[in-house]
């Protein structure tokens, strides 16, 4: 049981080490899907939003962690 629990914790921790970062990534992907599929902006512009959004999310998460430490 302890091993299963450790494996589950490890897998969860792999993807959700920082909850705000994880939620931010999921919201960003949903936003890009929305603007490309439903609003109809050029897919390449969607790619640019994805890239810039990812950079903003990781910079914010890092600066926040540094400030809180």
């Amino acid at each position: 049981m302890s091993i299963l629990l450790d494996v589950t914790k490890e897998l969860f921790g792999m993807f959700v080490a920082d909850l705000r970062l994880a939620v931010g990534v999921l919201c960003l992907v949903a936003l890009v899907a929305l603007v490309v599929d439903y609003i109809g902006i050029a897919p390449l512009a969607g790619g640019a939003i994805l890239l810039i959004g990812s950079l903003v999310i990781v910079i914010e998460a890092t600066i926040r962690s540094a400030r809180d430490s």
Partner: protein
Amino acid sequence: MLTGSWGSIAPAIGSAFLASTVEIVEAFTIILAVATLRGWKPAGIGTLAALSVLALIVVALGPLLDLVPLHGLQLVIGILLLLFGLGWLRKAMLRAAGVMALHDEAAIFERERREIGEEAARKMVSADWIAGLAAFKAVLLEGLEVVFIVIAVGAGRGLLLPAAIGALAACVAVLLVGVMIHKPLARVPENTLKFVVGVMLSSFGVFWTGEGLGVPWPGADLSLLGLVAIFLITGLATASLIKTTRMKTT
């Protein structure tokens, strides 16, 4: 047989090699701690048992990948890679900025040896059993990450074989060096590796997620190199900015 352009094959092999090196070094440190404390028998049995479980997982889940439509697979893997890669990059930037302590294999080695002895005494069971279990858990947990990395960088565009070759090469390299020096691999520049891997996995994450959403990246696979450069520059600049700001405030 390797098919595809070197623009996609080289990053797949490189990322799988570097990321797997980090994971295998971590597992090797614990195996070595177990072996020096209780001998190679429990370390070997624990390692082999974990490798068998990993092989079962790969054999059971591997064929399912073929059943998932390519765009769906790219999107799911891309999102998982974004979560994994950005998280790894964040930690690497914090370490580079001096906010988070650097990974120290020698300290982990000593801590693991101490914990095995304490746990055996506390639970009143054979120290060999605890030692074997520690090796099993280390190989299983780090191995699962290696399996994910191979699937993540390889499955999106039929690059499972190059990614697996990268991971296998890392395994052989770490074992060869480890057997030769017979000490924790403290000199592996693990923190630098983690920075590079964070950059590469984040780049793959943006690339695959974009592909899954129908983004026609300019230059196709070659745009991966551009993404790597952008994440690398951003990572270094952010770490440097945090370091400078902290130095000014202290």
